[in-house]
């Protein structure tokens, strides 16, 4: 009998072996190699030698790094707030309309399943400062036109709006799933007690939804802190460096200036930030669990 279970274990190991080998070669080894690279100094000739924390010390003194960090968190907090509010609002609307035609669902899926790069191309044309449809709508409503992505002041809010257009429906579908799994008895009890609709929303529905909203928060945080595609396709971090998030900056240091050691240090730092955010948010989710 013992022999069979040994054999079983061996076969199960064999089944996961290909994935394990691939993971070691393509994920684990590169991961540690990046940490190693971040401790190396590269000279102009391409030769490198161990340099300890030189790259990290350079980072602390680098104004561009602190600027990138500030941009990253501004974009993160702005986008997250916008899409959580818009997403929850959409979810409540969807939940209350009893029958949800499949076409509406498909419609809501379309923004976040299209390539982010395509979303960037599309909005680049719509938001064009001189000929775009967005400014036409603004001016016909008597509002001042905006330079959108071409304005150092507005580029981050604009990117946040584009990302909200793309991902608020995703948040909505997650929150809708949470709403549908709430026990109906809660509503019935509140209704019998004569609680007003607003009171029911703030006192009962939203607190019960908090774990689902936190799940959406964690999933969006991972993407938003690493924001890359839409910015790179529309502004490459510009105008000047107004949308130079850490991820964009790290990419440019690595593949435009070819400073691999310093780029690695930036990416290790960004990974630690993402991981830290996930750990903190995970603890917050545990606190609102019921």
């Amino acid at each position: 009998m013992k022999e069979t279970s040994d054999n079983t274990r061996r076969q199960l190991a064999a089944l996961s072996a290909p994935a394990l080998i691939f993971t070691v070669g393509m994920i684990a080894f590169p991961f540690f190699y990046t940490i190693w690279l971040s401790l190396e100094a590269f000279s102009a000739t391409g030769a490198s030698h161990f340099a300890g924390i030189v790259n990290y010390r350079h980072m602390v003194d680098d104004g561009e790094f602190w600027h990138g960090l500030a941009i990253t968190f501004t974009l993160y907090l702005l986008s997250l707030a916008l899409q959580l509010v818009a997403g929850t609002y959409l979810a409540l609307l969807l939940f209350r309309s009893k029958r949800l035609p499949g076409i509406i669902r498909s419609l809501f899926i379309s923004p976040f399943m299209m390539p982010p790069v395509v979303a960037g191309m599309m909005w680049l044309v719509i938001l064009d400062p001189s000929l775009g449809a967005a400014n036409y709508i603004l001016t016909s409503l008597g509002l001042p036109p905006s330079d959108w992505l071409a304005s150092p002041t507005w580029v981050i809010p604009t990117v946040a709006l584009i990302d909200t257009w793309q991902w608020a429906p995703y948040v909505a579908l997650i929150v809708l799933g949470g709403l549908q799994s709430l026990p109906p008895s809660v509503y019935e009890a509140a209704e019998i007690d004569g609680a007003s609709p607003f009171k029911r929303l703030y006192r009962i529905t939203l607190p019960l939804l908090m774990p689902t909203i936190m799940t959406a928060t964690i999933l969006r945080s991972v993407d938003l802190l690493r924001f890359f595609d839409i910015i790179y396709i529309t502004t490459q971090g510009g105008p000047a460096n107004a949308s130079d998030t850490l991820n964009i900056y790290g990419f440019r240091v690595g593949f435009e200036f070819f400073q691999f050691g310093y780029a690695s240090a930036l990416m290790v730092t960004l990974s630690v930030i993402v991981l830290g955010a996930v750990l903190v948010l995970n603890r917050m989710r545990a606190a609102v669990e019921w």
Partner: protein
Amino acid sequence: MSDKTLSDRLIGFLNTFQLAVAGLVVIVPTLWMVLSSFKQSYEVTAYPPTILFTPTLSNYAALSQTTPFLHYGLNSIIVTVGSTLIGLILGTPAAFAVSWTRVTWPAVIALVARMAPGTLFLLPWYVMFRHFDMIGSYWSLILTHAVITMPIVIWVLLPFFDGIPRSVFEAAQVDGCSPVRLFRRIALPLVSTGLAVSSILAFVFSWNYFLFALVLSNSDTKTLIAASFNFIGEGSTNWGGLMAAATLIALPPLILAVIVQRWLISGLTLGAVKG
């Protein structure tokens, strides 16, 4: 009583009205992209913008003449199909083993791969592929994109394997069926839906992925997404062509996503939310 139904009807109407507005906000930008792709070049940059126009296919026709669009499209298909297949080959048996043994390392690795910024992996890969003279090769793109697809396959398939009743496995084992045979003969056919869903999601995410091909492809192996950059450069003078390219690039993932929409949310949230 009739008073209540009236206010109910009003609330219902307001609800539908807000939903309609939200639906418009969601769909109008995409619709505008598609409409622009059918406009003549003088009309697409017309100001004020026109809504009624005589549609033309000239932008689409011009794409294959002025850019290697079909060649890039073929590259996209090679990389996407290749990485989806590798993701399935690696991920499916691993998901079965995870479901059986409850060992969680593949799940954890998948999470790490999902959380780390792509550039973190791109830097060492670039050094590695340069060492093997593989930069610009299809294999460098397929292997790196498999880092996206394999975790998706594992996460999407896990609940499907978990859904098979344990008694099915136990009965087969009593009959002397080994795990490998059990996997191939019994478990795989039972998760055919999961296989379809995971291949489609893996395909979509591999197709949409931008960063790796941006650095690792060359003019011969460039995918459509990586080539978008060139389209924008040329598109500054030709919005119709740019929007036609954008529409065509978005079409495969959008069609596929609609097919799997029932499983989409639970798949995208790594099973954290039941869709």
